[in-house]
């Protein structure tokens, strides 16, 4: 059998050397991978991040995750994968192993690195609103499943819904048209690009920060009404493209091809391209919840799953770059004070891994690195410390300043001025376009 250890795949390969028949070898591999996946699922269910950390350290099963495939034959329409049940003896072995593992994990907790900090406490407001503690982010996550969304297509539709092949069901009752998308990309050397862009290239994830009622039977009426009230408000103001309510229902608010109000003044980029004020460039997805500092995952499992299906569908449909799928908290800026984190929803704790997206908290913040933005006490009072991407951006800025022979403050100021200039150019460009559109409209109406 392939044994668990620090390197289970190496152990599996060693075992494979003794098998000569290709079919038997294939069977051994596939069953071993199934077994790794089963164990991984069980470890995911272990309570507490430190315990899980120790369990993963002991088993090394994370190494096999890229091989947990829903499409092991590489066909376009793979047959439904039926994982054979583990035999009784094997089940018993796994269960005993799990018990031993938990015991070992308990003993090994002392070795859990301090930097991970204590188990996060649920946010105060969240505790007040919801009687039971919310799941931590890690506990609710599934393993990432591959890098790019599978092919997704419209299976069925009606006057008020669209159903997609990945199980995504979009309620279109509330959908309205928004303004036409129109935005530009900036490059470090070229400034504002000449090309006017009209297709979305990314996603910004939000939380609605609306009234959240306890998930209890006695609040059914409130639970129903609050979502409807929220949707009425969003539609009226063309806020967000999608809202995912607490039961995982996905509502389209503004048509995807149009611009919605959601990202406000913001900065993000990928490669050498930078985007200012992301309403034009991105699709806004909001979860009906309050972020509450991100100490615990503020969404329900249904919301997590629905968000994943919606993200896959949007990425597939618009060929969105994963690097451009970001949270509002990471991109939002205060343009006058040149501060990041003007809005902080999902500034921590968004489950990027479960959505097969790169961990944007690790990415050097473009606002800090390219435009010399910083943060203030309010920011620190909520987050405690900046996310790793801010620190990385500060380090990059300092290193670039050293390379150019200037002080960090001088370089920062220079970049702040670049931001101000670019923002002014962008504003002027938008105003010119608005005037032109108004003139066209007047001409069309004969006025």
């Amino acid at each position, binding site marked *: 059998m392939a044994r668990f250890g620090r390197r289970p795949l190496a152990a599996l390969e060693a075992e494979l050397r003794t098998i000569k028949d290709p079919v038997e070898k294939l069977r051994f*591999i596939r069953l071993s991978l199934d077994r790794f996946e089963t164990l991984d699922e069980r470890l995911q269910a272990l309570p507490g991040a430190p315990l899980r950390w120790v369990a993963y350290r002991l088993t090394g099963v994370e190494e096999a995750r890229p091989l947990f495939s829903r499409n092991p034959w590489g066909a376009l329409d793979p047959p439904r994968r039926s994982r054979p049940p583990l035999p009784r003896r094997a089940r018993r072995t796994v269960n005993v192993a799990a018990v031993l593992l938990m015991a070992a994990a308990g003993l090994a907790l002392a070795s859990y690195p301090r930097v991970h900090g204590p188990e996060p406490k649920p946010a105060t407001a969240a505790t007040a609103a919801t009687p039971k503690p919310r799941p931590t982010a890690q506990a609710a996550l599934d393993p990432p499943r591959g890098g790019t969304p599978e*092919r997704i297509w419209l299976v069925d539709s009606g006057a008020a819904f669209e159903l997609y092949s990945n199980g995504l069901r979009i309620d279109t009752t509330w959908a309205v048209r928004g303004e036409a998308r129109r935005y530009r990309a900036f490059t470090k050397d070229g400034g504002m690009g000449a090309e006017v862009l009209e297709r979305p290239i990314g996603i910004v994830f939000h939380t609605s920060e609306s009234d959240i009622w306890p998930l209890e039977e006695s609040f059914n009426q409130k639970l129903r009404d609050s979502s409807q009230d929220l949707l009425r408000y969003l539609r009226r103001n063309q806020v967000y493209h999608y809202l995912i309510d607490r039961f995982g229902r996905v509502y389209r608010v503004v048509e995807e091809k149009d611009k919605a109000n959601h990202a406000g003044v913001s900065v993000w980029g990928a490669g050498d391209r930078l985007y200012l004020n992301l309403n034009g460039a991105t699709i806004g997805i909001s979860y009906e919840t309050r972020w509450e500092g991100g100490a615990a995952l503020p969404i329900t499992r249904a919301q997590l799953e629905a968000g994943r299906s919606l993200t896959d569908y949007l990425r597939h449909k618009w060929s969105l770059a994963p690097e451009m799928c970001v949270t509002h908290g990471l991109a939002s800026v205060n343009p006058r004070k040149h501060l990041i984190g003007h809005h902080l929803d999902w500034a921590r704790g968004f489950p990027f891994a479960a959505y097969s997206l790169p961990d944007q908290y690790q990415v050097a913040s473009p606002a800090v690195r390219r435009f010399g933005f910083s943060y203030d006490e309010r920011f620190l009072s909520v987050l405690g410390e900046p996310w790793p991407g801010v620190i990385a951006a500060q380090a990059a800025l300092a290193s670039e300043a050293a390379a150019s022979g200037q002080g960090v403050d001088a370089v920062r100021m220079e970049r702040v001025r670049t931001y101000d200039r670019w923002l002014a150019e962008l504003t002027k460009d938008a105003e010119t376009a608005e005037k032109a559109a108004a003139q066209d409209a007047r001409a069309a109406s004969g006025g």
Partner: protein
Amino acid sequence: MAENKDHLWKAPEESADKIEDLVKGGSHPVGIDVGTSKVVVSKRGGKEVACQAQLNAFIPVPYSPVTERTIQQQSDIHYYRDGEEIVIFGSATERFANMFNAEARRPMADGLLNPKEKQAWPVLEAILQSLVPKPRSSNEVLSFSVPAAAPGRESALTYHEASLRQHFTALGYKAMAINEGLAVIFAELEQHNFTGIGISCGGGMCNATLAFLSIPSIMVSLPKAGDFIDRSVGDAVGEHAQRVKVIKEEGFELSKQPKDKLEKALHIYYEDLVESLVDTLRRAISRAEKLPKTDRPLPIVLAGGTAKPKGFRELFERTLRARPFPIEVAEVRVAADPFTATARGAYIAAMFEK
């Protein structure tokens, strides 16, 4: 060894009698490579696994009782009557194409059912029926190859895959599709625990798959292969594509200096094809977000009729190593039998699913 057998996820290692077991159990899995140029079937014949092929082409000839009687007298000609025409299909097509000085028609193009060919499906069905026996019992497994989805052609692939699945299911098989490059890996990289890159260079397209421990991580296709070479060379030298194909298949070698204009053009378009293939693979691997970690270089195996000329392997390796490649490559080799590798790999998948 004995203790290992106690675990059910560990397969028994005494597999030498596997074919014997299948005979006793009456199991007859089938693997098929449904290629643009050829359809190759891998199935059991007695205790051996054997491969059979048919040209994936046809030619309609005018019906007359005399023609039909003449055809009937020759056992190796497959045909069916369609109104006022006799449709000759499979390997005899080339002979009749030469006889009537006409071009053979293809049910498939660029790896998929040919949307411009009205007779595509009836002919392909007939070709498949000539190769695939009816299952002897219910739930016999049949595994057929499909290309990787080329960008923008997903819906065509869905139709292609679903049509084949329906056909084999209607015959009574438990049908499963397998990616073509993965099938090459199954057939050729067992020694490497099904880890490496399998490339199938067929008539309509090239398919490449990077797999780790039998699980495909990257699958790409390039709608450029043998037919592209035949057409391009034909256009360049004013020769019929069919004749280019014949010359190409009759002992053309990439390892030798070209001796005439046609061979020079063949060299040029082979180089162009390999360049595009390596570039496609390089880009796909560079873009991949998550690949399993491996600390050893990976093998590449080349299969398909287009990989057959001597010197193809060297050309591929030269092109590959001319520029940095995102993963370390251990060796590049040609499959033991490039024509049947995909079918043999599909057969292994069918045996597994049995």
